């Protein structure tokens, strides 16, 4: 055995390196082709743009790692903005207290998804597809289905506020990404989520409570959707049953571009942030080039395919790459 081991002594690179490199390339391209990209205004704008979708994408990533998929956060956001707006504006509940209630409700929505999926053994694609419709349906029950405007000025401060010139949202995003990447790496629950997504049968035989783990992943997703809804309501100082349309897909796209595998068991929280950033910056770059939305959508779609392609054929590509190099060095 020993003479067989080529002396390659290298640590495996962390899994967010690929997406990070892709992000840097995207930044360079957009930075070089436009002159407004690196202006403080644009960068701040980018941060505000990426914040909501990236927080929601944390939840989507957890669910994907656990082997499921969550199609409901967009609708959950619509419902929760309506509830938040109603609570503050019509019931006179103070903003901080209302936010706490919203987060609890977000957890409950996730719990609902999780219980349906884990205990009734309905595939999560179906349960969350149903929830997507149901949550949005409920959102329209508030205020006769009309948006609620000008909720409160203290609320907008949550989104637009700054400390030392840095927007608050930067700290939210930073906090949650660090928190969840630590949870996934350094807690039993995190490890169990990876295990369940990797092989649910083996997880059960290893003494893991598979149902509980799946439910927890959905609860986290619900909580992250609730934070997304709070930021959304604060940003627009309103609640609307039409908010968050397509948000679930953007969040899933961020996870996938970050290298999460829809087969389960694979994914990285930090990489999801890079995934979300890539998508947002590409949008931004195309905007700066005055490309219409239609083109933007097409480009984003291509990026998703490209990301999955790289991921699936990573080993083969590596093979071809190393063969090319060895040929080069031989001749």
């Amino acid at each position, binding site marked *: 055995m020993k003479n067989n081991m080529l002396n*390659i002594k290298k640590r495996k690179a962390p899994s967010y390196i690929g997406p990070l490199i892709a992000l840097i390339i995207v930044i360079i391209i957009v930075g070089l082709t436009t002159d407004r990209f690196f202006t403080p205004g644009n960068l701040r704008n980018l941060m505000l743009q990426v914040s909501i979708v990236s927080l929601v994408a944390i939840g989507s990533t957890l669910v994907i790692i656990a082997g499921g998929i969550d199609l409901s956060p967009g609708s959950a956001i619509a419902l929760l903005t309506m509830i938040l707006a109603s609570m503050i504006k019509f019931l006179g509940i103070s903003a901080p207290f209302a936010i706490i209630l919203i987060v609890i409700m977000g957890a409950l929505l996730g719990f609902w998804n999780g219980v349906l999926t884990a205990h009734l053994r309905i595939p999560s694609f179906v349960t969350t597809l149903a929830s997507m419709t149901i949550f949005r349906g409920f959102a329209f029950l508030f205020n006769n289905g009309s948006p609620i405007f000008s909720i409160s000025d203290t609320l907008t401060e949550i989104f637009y506020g700054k400390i030392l010139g840095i927007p608050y949202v930067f700290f939210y995003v930073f906090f949650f990404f660090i928190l969840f990447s630590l949870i996934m790496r*350094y*807690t039993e629950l995190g490890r169990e989520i990876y*295990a369940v997504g990797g092989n649910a049968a083996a997880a059960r*035989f290893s003494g893991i409570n598979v149902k509980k783990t799946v439910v927890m992943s959905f609860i986290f997703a619900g909580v992250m959707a609730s934070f997304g809804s709070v930021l959304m309501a604060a940003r627009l100082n309103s609640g609307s049953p039409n908010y968050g349309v397509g948000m679930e897909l953007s969040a899933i796209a961020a996870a996938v571009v970050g290298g999460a595998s829809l087969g389960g068991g694979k994914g990285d929280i930090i990489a999801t942030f890079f995934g979300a950033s890539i998508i947002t910056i590409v949008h931004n770059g195309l905007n700066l080039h005055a490309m219409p939305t239609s083109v933007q959508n097409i480009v984003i779609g291509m990026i998703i395919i490209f990301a999955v392609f790289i991921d699936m054929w990573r080993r083969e590509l590596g093979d071809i790459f190393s063969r090319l190099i060895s040929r080069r060095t031989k001749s």
Partner: protein
Amino acid sequence: MNEIKELLWELKNVTKVFPGVKAINNLSLKIYSSEVHGMIGENGSGKSTIVKCLSGVYQPTSGKIFYRGNPIVIHNPMMACSLGVATIYQELSLVPSLTVAENIYIGRLPRKERFPFIVDWQEIVKKSLVILKKLGIDLDPLNIVADLSIAQQQMVEIAKALSRNANLIIMDEPSAAIGMEETKRLHEIVLNMAMQGYGIIYITHRLDELSVMDCVTVLKDGEVVGDRAKGRINVKEIVNLMIGHDVKEHYPKQINQTNDTLLTVSDIYTKKGINGVSFTVHQGEVFGLAGSIGSGRTEIGHAIFGIDDITDGSIKLQNCQVVMTKDKFTTPREAIKCGVALLTENRKYNGLFMNFNGVNNVSIAKLKKIVHRGILDLNKEEIFAKEYIDKLKITPTAVEQSVEFLSGGNQQKVIIARWMFCEANIFILDEPTQGIDIGAKVEVYRLINDITSHGKGVIFISSDFEELLAMSDRIGIVNKGKIIAVKEVKNINKKYLIEKAFVNQV
């Protein structure tokens, strides 16, 4: 009958390198028709890699492959198939929900002559019957594959290969997951096929299978260390070539049996076919379970471990740190907490986490051991897991590499390491030596000694009655969900076990 042996395939100086490992090294090999070509070697010696080079899954890093004397590059599995190579992997690739006949003709269902868009079902059944008969397999083509045993599914795979006009049939450890009687049957079919002119590559870890081979290639560290034709096959010499030294004791049994009861199983029933099973396991004892596949031996393990619900009867565990709330375990989690470990017989399906490296696979069943104030201590995890990886002589690449890329034997050892890591009190080992090499088998036997010498108990399930007799203290014979006899091993022999285990079986 076809007595002329033709050269089908030749590998010349083939090398295959994976990142960090040379799986085969400058290897040359000739494969002829009309013979059973055995391949034997330690875990990770490169047997499966050779197979995958021939079946188009991998491309050799260097070296040439010749087909009937002509150099050829096998670009993909489809091409290998059209060149007449059929590979039967250990994980079978049938569609469980379809019938035998459909599986045989999948992808090439014959059509009605006059209406080419309509499948000719009668024709499929008729043709399937012809092939099955040619092989001497007694199977109804209309059976659903999911209802067949592993051994029968293997037969369907063989039939499928023949229907595709294969000339070389490669079997990677076909006997690992089937019982004794089924193996005998398989040998008959393999010999029959060789007589009909097929070339066969037969990979195994079981030395008692050398008798089916016309020649055997012994591999070590990716190189051929010996080639022996029939008549010159000497078991002792082959072992020596394979692992580089003699195995003095194939079964290093240590007697640690005591009279203190560890586990009492009283008259348990489950919906999975256990009908009143009672036995006890003592501290330091190896309690063997002998039975045919499907006799219920695996299900007894599942019942104790909390996988299958026990509908009646009880389990009592002495030395249990945790108070058992009921007289059974309702989940594996409870069982593990009380010090029960179950090594399952199907490591791919419910053992391995392919998304984890070896270290994470070892620690997963008892993360508590590496948790410090609610946080996983990853350094501690690596140190602890490495200890077991070294102890079980698992390849060091397992530390960082996904277990997906480990050889079958190393994968098995990783799961054994998992349960050693759990420091269980009672180990239920379901076919623990399945697919592992002779050296590693002896390691497993030593581990069993190690377990029993600390006063822990082992329930040992195996289709290999020889090892069962050699390593157990007492054996319970399982037949149709019941233990029909419990005997001290010194009072029984293999013949007795076979008689008892296979009576009343169809």
